[in-house]
């Protein structure tokens, strides 16, 4: 008897209940081979053409005479300190020379696009600000502009000017981190200390204005969360007075430093054609000589009113990316100065009580204000159906927000076009046939933020 029951239970196929995908067919499951220490199938001409794009010529001739013993696959990361977060690279080496690279990402994936579908439009900025944690204000700006484009509202002039002021300061602080980490990775440790020191003064201003050093939730649909703090002009003036001198110090330190030049000139080169084929944007694209800047081409928040130059490089190597970032700080300082001197008066958010909450004082006096306040913070505001794509120029490139609404109070779909995600994709061709020792310089000059890559 006992035997029979065991046989019965063995024959019975247990009923599996799939909680996650009830009602959907599984797409064909194709496991990767990343665990097997294998980068991909052997290089064939077709595969190379697919990987590199038709416009790109691959000049590496795969040498069949090299014995298997001479090739080695090395794992870098995900916990390597110089990979700027949790980036993992599989690198196939032939001696000291990198032949193939495969970036493996997803270690910081937190499903923010799924989360955005659960949050209301008003709560959205708290979510997106955590994506690119070095440029949180740009993420908030792209999201807010997308919501406003669906709502069809224009923010007041002062709100737009505050947004430009804050995002340009954010660009400076983000580029300072890029310079600092780039310096540290190549061995210029003093650059790391200086970069973070100058960034601190900007973060202090952010803390005074928004309440937090990072993850601000300051730029919201309809305007900004609060007006600039009293005495903000003194703080910004201090930053403006301080930074140019400091930038000169960096130039003394690095610009003509022979060690720096040897480690960065001609390293990690990417050509214009490659950069465009791989959808690369931002300083990396501009370092190749393409003067493409969304602030000039598709201006947002009235940035066309301010004068600044688009900085381009020539060679597309690590040195040019470093120079582009330094000079972009100078241009951003110009914009900040112009915004500060011409800050319009008026309201810092749109005067539409269906979108922005009423002032605190009104809630005590007006029943309607109280109802508006309550509705906004419980169910949020409804956004008319439609879809839109809005992009801003973040310190890393084109940061776009694709937003679909079906008329409810939370987005039907929110997708972020993350610049680091696309820039990282070019690592295999940027690092091909270069020295292992240059890996770290190349990664650092890409300035990837893993929060932005994985979302």
């Amino acid at each position: 008897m006992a035997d029979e029951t065991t046989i019965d239970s063995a024959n019975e196929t247990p009923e599996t209940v799939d909680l996650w995908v009830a009602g959907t067919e599984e797409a064909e499951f194709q496991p990767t081979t990343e665990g097997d220490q294998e980068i991909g199938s052997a290089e064939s001409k077709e595969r190379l053409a697919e990987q590199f794009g038709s416009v790109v010529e691959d000049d590496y001739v795969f040498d069949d005479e090299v014995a298997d013993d001479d090739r080695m696959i090395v794992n870098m990361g995900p916990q390597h300190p110089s990979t700027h977060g949790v980036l993992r690279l599989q690198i196939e080496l032939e001696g000291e020379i990198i032949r193939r690279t495969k970036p493996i990402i997803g270690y910081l994936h937190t499903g923010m696009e799924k989360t955005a579908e659960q949050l209301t439009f008003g709560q959205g900025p708290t979510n997106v600000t955590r994506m690119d944690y070095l440029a949180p204000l740009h993420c908030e700006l792209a999201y807010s502009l997308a919501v406003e484009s669906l709502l069809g509202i224009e923010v007041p002039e002062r709100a737009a000017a505050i947004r430009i002021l804050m995002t340009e300061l954010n660009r400076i602080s983000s580029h300072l981190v890029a310079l600092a980490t780039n310096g540290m990775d190549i061995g210029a440790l003093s650059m790391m200390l200086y970069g973070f020191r100058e960034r601190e003064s900007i973060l202090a201003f952010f803390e005074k204005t928004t309440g937090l050093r990072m993850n601000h939730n300051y730029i919201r649909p309809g305007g900004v969360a609060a007006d600039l703090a009293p005495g903000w002009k003194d703080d910004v003036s201090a930053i403006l007075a301080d930074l140019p001198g400091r930038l000169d110090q960096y130039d003394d330190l690095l610009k003509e430093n022979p060690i720096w030049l040897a480690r960065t000139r001609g390293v990690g080169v990417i050509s214009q054609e490659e950069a465009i084929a791989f959808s690369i944007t931002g300083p990396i694209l501009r370092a190749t000589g393409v003067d493409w800047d969304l602030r000039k081409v598709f201006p947002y928040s009235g940035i066309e009113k301010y004068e600044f130059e688009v900085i381009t490089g020539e060679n597309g190597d690590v040195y040019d990316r470093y120079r582009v970032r330094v000079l972009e700080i100078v241009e951003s300082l110009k914009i900040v100065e112009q915004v500060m001197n011409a800050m319009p008066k008026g309201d810092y958010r749109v005067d539409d009580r269906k979108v922005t909450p009423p002032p605190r004082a009104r809630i005590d006096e007006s029943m309607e204000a109280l109802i508006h306040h309550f509705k906004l913070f419980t169910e949020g505001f409804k956004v008319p159906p439609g879809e839109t794509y809005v992009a801003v120029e973040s310190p890393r490139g084109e940061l776009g927000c694709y937003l679909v609404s079906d008329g409810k109070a939370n987005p039907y779909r929110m997708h972020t076009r993350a610049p680091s995600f696309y820039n990282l994709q070019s690592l295999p061709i940027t690092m091909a046939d270069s020295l292992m020792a240059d890996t770290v310089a190349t990664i650092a000059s890409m300035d990837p933020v893993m929060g932005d890559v994985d979302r």
Partner: protein
Amino acid sequence: MRSGTSGQIGWSGDWEPQMNQVLAGLAEGFEDVTFSQSLGQDIASVPTDSWKAFAEAAKKAGFEVCCDVTAVDWMRQRPERFEIVANLLSMRHRIRLRVSTTIGREDPTVESLTPLWPGAGFAEREVYDMFGIIFDGHPDLTRILMPDDWDGHPLRKDFGVGSVPVQFKESHKVD
């Protein structure tokens, strides 16, 4: 280091708005493609069969960058469940075009744009990972953000949220 060039591509080069000409050129030979506008942004709705052919024509017409590929799950809202959206950008003409196609749930397969724009590679892997859409002709269509052994595709509308078992939740509480 220069500031501003007069290269062929870029904002300071010769430029005049050519959206209508570019779109008119694209519409030739694709009678079943409908062009529309949403909030001033141009959208081309393409049948699935001519997805890659249209993309190829768009690339020839000057859309040299594929900014983004993503998808929307219209479960129980539209007859065709998935909408694939590709964001194309022409640096030469300084215009954007959003190309979309719809596919049903039975056979969610479209042709990959990776042979045209290698930059679409990661984006298509992400869409495969999140929606389970197969891109035919992709060189390495594997999961990119989720773990390899993950069940299901998280951004589908019938994928639940917030019910992943929490580790160590049975541990002693600190009062």
